[in-house]
């Protein structure tokens, strides 16, 4: 029984944490929040340079070949430090789709570019929930025409993997006929854009059964995002605890009031449950275990709940100062929602978890 990460993996995590503490500052995040930057460039540069972003891309494709467990810990730190970078779009989603469904040539061509940061990629792989009628995106085998759904990092991506019917389609965004329509985002630190195509050259990802690949990639992303969520939730819990020890009212540290203590204990409990489910998901992802769909769905639901509770109650426990623009509480409030919905809400994933459990019981 060794339900923990290795010392080497922890060393990488420490290095990433140190780097992010220096570069992914509140100010850097706010540059993006307030629209002065599309992403935190220094943070992105460092994550690429350290080989952290490309931890799970094999060395033959220009990655660090450290595997998914390493990437999970990178994700935890990215979440903790609210990193405003295209890590999920490029690495959890697009690179994974290419790695799992691309031809050798497609992998050889694109993965090194993504790993080196030369190209930012994004992806839309489908979701169980939607608002507007599905975008009328058409692929004729050679070109793509129509509008994508809202894509995280769609404004800066050079490449997109899009689900069109039963296909996964690879489209270079420097190609002809591409226009970008920036869209407002509830979490402006993660900007959204719609892509419009007019007979833009595109190609099919070579692999068969794209629905299964998309589902597999989304499971992996669920695990990785769960680590971001756990990281973010831990950050706001720690900030709340520290504030409650500093701040006094009625002649006492407010953290000595049992109502505050118990609420923090409840947040902690939610986070720890999420953490162990995320760990279990990491194990399933890294060992390609048949438990992955169940473990990934569980990690996603638990982590979405934990970050939501931590962000909501974190503001509450800060009192008045908690809902000011100057405090970082609202960055977590927004990020919690962003991470909790971007690959489908907790409800969709809870349904998926139930599907798996009922299937297993049969």
């Amino acid at each position, binding site marked *: 029984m060794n339900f923990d990460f290795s010392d080497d993996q922890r060393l990488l995590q420490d290095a990433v944490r140190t780097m992010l503490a220096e570069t992914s500052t509140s100010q850097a995040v706010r540059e993006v929040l307030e629209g002065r930057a599309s992403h935190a460039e220094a943070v992105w540069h460092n994550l690429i340079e350290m080989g952290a972003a490309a931890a799970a891309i094999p060395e033959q494709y220009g990655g660090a070949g450290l595997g998914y467990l390493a990437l999970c810990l990178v994700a935890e730190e990215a979440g903790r430090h609210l990193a405003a970078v295209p890590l999920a779009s490029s690495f959890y989603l697009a690179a994974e789709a290419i790695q799992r469904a691309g031809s050798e040539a497609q992998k050889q061509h694109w993965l090194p570019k993504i790993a080196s940061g030369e190209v930012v990629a994004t992806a839309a792989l489908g*979701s*169980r*929930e*939607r*608002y*507007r009628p599905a975008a009328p995106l058409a692929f004729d085998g050679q070109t793509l025409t129509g509008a994508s*759904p*809202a894509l995280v990092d769609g404004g800066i991506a050079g490449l997109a993997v899009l689900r069109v019917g039963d296909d996964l389609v690879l489209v270079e965004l420097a190609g002809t006929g591409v226009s970008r329509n920036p*869209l*407002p*985002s*509830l*979490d402006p630190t993660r900007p*959204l854009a719609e892509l419009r195509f007019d007979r833009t050259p595109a190609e099919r990802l070579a692999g068969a059964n794209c629905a299964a690949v998309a589902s597999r990639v989304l499971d992996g992303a669920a695990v990785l995002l769960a680590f971001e969520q756990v990281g973010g939730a831990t950050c706001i819990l720690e900030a709340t605890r520290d504030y409650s020890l500093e701040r*006094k*009212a*009625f*002649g*006492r540290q407010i953290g000595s*009031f049992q*109502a*505050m203590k118990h609420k923090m204990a409840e947040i902690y409990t939610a986070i720890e449950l999420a953490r162990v489910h995320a760990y279990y998901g990491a194990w399933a992802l890294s060992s390609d275990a048949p438990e992955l769909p169940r473990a990934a769905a569980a990690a996603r639901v638990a982590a979405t709940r934990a970050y*939501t509770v931590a962000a*909501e109650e974190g*503001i*509450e426990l800060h*009192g*008045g100062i*908690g*809902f*000011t*623009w*100057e405090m970082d*509480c*609202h960055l977590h*409030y927004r990020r919690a*929602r*962003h991470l*909790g*919905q*971007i*690959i*489908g*809400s*907790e*409800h*969709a994933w809870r*349904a998926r978890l139930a599907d798996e459990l009922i299937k297993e019981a049969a």
Partner: protein
Amino acid sequence: MDFRDTPEEAAFRAEVRAWLEANGQKRTRPDEVFGEGLDDAAKLAAAKAWQAKKAAAGYAAITWPKAAGGRGGTAMQQVIYQQEEAAYLVPGMIFEVSIGMGLPTVMTWAAPELKARFLRPGLAGEEIWCQLFSEPGAGSDTGGVRTRAVRDGDDWIINGQKVWTSGAHFCDYGILLTRSDWDKPKQEGLTMFIVDMKAPGVEVRPIHQMSGDAEFNEVFFTDVRIPDSYRLGPECGGWKVMLSTLMQERLSVGGNLPTDLHAHLIALAQQCAWDERPAIEDDRVRARIADAYLQQKGVELVIARGLTAISKGKAPGPEMAITKLVAAKTMQDIAAFAIELAGPEGLLGFEALGGDWRYMQRLWLGSPGARIAGGTDEILKNVIAERVLGLPGEIRSDRKVPFRDLESA
């Protein structure tokens, strides 16, 4: 048991309704607010004009004695006016502190010549009042204020900082809680004043909220002079004055939960698909719609019980604290769920979605503030536990000690 008006109430309601129809402007969208499209100065001017009209018609302070410029009416008439006005585009918040806290405090504690000076222009909206109690180190624990008042001849010199002051940037006067004696225990060394917000040394800085709005301010006082005649109540009597001010507020029947959350949720669920079916058909969504109704209707009915007390000439009790406790958290939960309905697309700002979303997204961004302003969930639960259920107060170590000796001072 009868939800209908008494004949007297019905007659008053008809009168109010006729006046509003003749003079007011009805809301056309649920999230429409007064003065949309106007700049701040124009909005303020329009608000003052409305208040003047309302005061002239005798609706500005229905329960006040006629001598003080009120109507000498009943609390129930006040409630009826508010119910009817709710459908109209009116600048409610701007004068809320004037009418609900500032002027009543003046009426209770100021000398006759000051009442003559302040009540009429305040009611008519010519002068607007704010309330300056909270400080960075004294929020829920208002007794901890440290803004210093030092006597200097016939004046007092004020230095310090207040925070969470609604509308300070457009207000003319404020009621200001200060510490005038540091050798008395916490709540015994406080003195209340009227302060001229345009006086030299008063500086107002807006506080930006997470929603991007700036309804609140920090207010800094640097050697601000206040004549002793502007003192409200005795020296070191500020705590009692403040309690009387807050008591006024308590008489208003709380809870500002929209009563149609569930209807909005239904409308949004009809626009979304879950697993290729309309979300409105999902059993989980239906359960949440029911829960939204349960909470909001429950709050509405608790308020109805408060109104029943008012209608019988009694004051609603501390149990009304549950209205805000329930309403604020319900707003947060339902708004979050509404956003989730659309899955990844729910993360789009409302400008990119239909207009129905604007409402929910605003609630979602506003609800953390709603859970804090006017008493956090924790403070409200204390109120219920101690004042309704009769459970013991917290152990206090800061009650008998001179303020200057407290660790936090």
